[in-house]
């Protein structure tokens, strides 16, 4: 019941904010289109970072292929709206236009998520046998394969890029799915299954010996993470209305990794913070013109020197608010 009320409240807040930002509640509350776009891209980054953290942070499997799964979600969902959009809209003609668009978006995102999950499965099963650097290289390779593959599909624009995608995503949907992503990852991590993931990160051999099917756990976390990256990609395409494979190079994967590393691997709130901070730094430094990337790199270096474990480390933000309780060190009682 409490959960239900919270979700209704969240949807209401997001809906109101969406209206306010776009000027629906009077010009005083509207924000500039540039600023709105930055906020929306930050939301997409949150989805990507939190989902990648499930693999890299919690399961400890270093993947550099996230942009590939994002690309699959982006292109697949854009293809759905561009190709079948009119059919879906006319089939739902009894609904108001806005509702039709929302349904279309959700269906397209679902298709993108499923395809990204399938790709995650196909990539994950062979790659996740590898550890450390080897896994990183293989996932990087698969990410690039996916990108080049899409680059050669003429139906989605090929090297010209994919134009003409309707603008179906907005602040509301981006932050709605960011919340869903956070909720899913939070619940997974705080479950029996989630403990097996952290156990794999801590010591794979011991996890196996304690009856954890490590391959299965790793593949599931990879698939779930890929699906969520697919949703992030779908929102990206439907927000910017244009897709090009250049947005999904391995540099994009590295960007997402930077977000989770500065936020703290293995911390959901850390990933959110890292994603927002990343875009705040890159956009905030635009004033600095040609020195922008130099300053940005310096900031990253400073963060890594001051907080090598990431800003929040392994911990969640809330754990800093409650005073750390020292457990009493009771002298052990004799056996029996």
């Amino acid at each position, binding site marked *: 019941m409490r959960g239900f009320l919270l979700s209704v409240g969240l949807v209401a807040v997001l809906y109101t904010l969406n209206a306010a930002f776009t000027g629906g509640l009077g010009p005083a509350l509207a924000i500039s289109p540039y600023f709105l776009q930055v906020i929306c891209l930050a939301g997409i980054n949150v989805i990507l970072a939190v989902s990648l953290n499930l693999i890299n942070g919690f399961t400890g499997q270093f993947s550099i292929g996230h942009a590939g799964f994002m690309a699959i979600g982006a292109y697949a969902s854009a293809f759905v709206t561009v190709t079948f959009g009119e059919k879906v809209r006319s089939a739902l003609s009894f609904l108001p236009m806005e509702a039709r668009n929302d349904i279309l978006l959700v269906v397209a995102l679902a298709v993108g998520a499923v395809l990204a999950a399938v790709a995650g499965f196909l990539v994950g099963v062979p790659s996740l046998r590898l550890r450390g650097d080897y896994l990183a290289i293989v996932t990087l390779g698969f990410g690039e394969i996916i990108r080049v593959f899409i680059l050669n599909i003429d139906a989605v624009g090929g090297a010209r890029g994919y134009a003409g995608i309707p603008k179906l995503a907005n602040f509301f949907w981006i932050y709605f799915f960011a919340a869903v992503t956070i909720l899913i990852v939070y619940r997974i991590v705080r*479950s*029996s299954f989630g*403990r097996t993931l952290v156990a794999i990160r*801590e*010591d794979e051999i*011991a996890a196996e*010996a*304690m009856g954890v099917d490590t391959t299965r756990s790793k593949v599931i976390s990879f698939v779930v993470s890929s699906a969520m990256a697919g949703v992030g990609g779908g929102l990206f395409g439907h927000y910017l209305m244009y897709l090009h494979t250049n947005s999904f190079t391995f540099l994009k994967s590295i960007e997402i990794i930077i977000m989770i590393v500065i936020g703290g691997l293995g911390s959901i709130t850390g990933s959110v913070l890292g994603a927002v901070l990343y875009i705040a730094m890159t956009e905030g430094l635009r004033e600095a013109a040609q020195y922008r990337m130099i300053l940005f790199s310096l900031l990253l270096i400073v963060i890594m020197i001051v907080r090598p474990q990431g800003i929040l480390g392994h911990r969640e933000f809330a754990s800093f608010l409650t005073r750390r309780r020292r457990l009493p060190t009771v002298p052990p009682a004799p056996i029996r």
Partner: protein
Amino acid sequence: MALLDLSSVTMRFGGLIAVNELDLQLDAGHLYGLIGPNGAGKTTVFNVITGVYTPTSGKIRFNGAEIGGQKTVRITRRGIARTFQNIRLFGDMSVVDNVKVAFHCRQGADVGAAVLRSPKHSSEEARVERESLELLKIFRLESLAGEKARNLPYGSQRRLEIARAMATSPKLLLLDEPAAGMNPHEAQELMDLIRWVRDRFGMAILLVEHNMKVVMGICEIVHVLDYGSTVAIGKPAEIQANPEVIEAYLGGA
């Protein structure tokens, strides 16, 4: 029929024969010791039994089923649990979570249930929490339940490893040097604990140990290995008097 039955198991790494035609029978409810000089193949025997290695030849039957070469997970789920010579705890997880991980293989609810917070998942979580704390109480770790495993003192880490292995509800428990690095007082406590665990849960325990006081103090049958082959099998007193064992340890006169 024996609970665990190794018949002429050989494990070869290239030209090195780590375990040579080993026969080993363990019955439920007994305490066994596996001793031998460094490099005798004791840990390899553990790794073969738990599926880390597939034996080059020979049969391993557990509870009537052939388990040689099966994946470690399957063997653990059949009822063989182990601890490690160099402690392998999940360092960044809390003490109670370490134990909870080991309960996972007996839990039914999975990812979907976790995301949807199904009643089944919640009730299982509550049960696992309760049973984990009970187990920690047995091993006198309940006051440290919320502490990170890596922050525990050495002796407690060893106890936690045994507690974690117990959470998989094993029929056979393999302990790889449980008393390593313990002072005499801690070793004595450990002996009491191992004996008590065996009496309470009635499983078979096989331990590899260099601390002879521990081995001779609690094991009912001691199996001596040297160069991968059996040198002697017998009661502790017989082993201590056996000239071949003395020769294996001290070298021939």
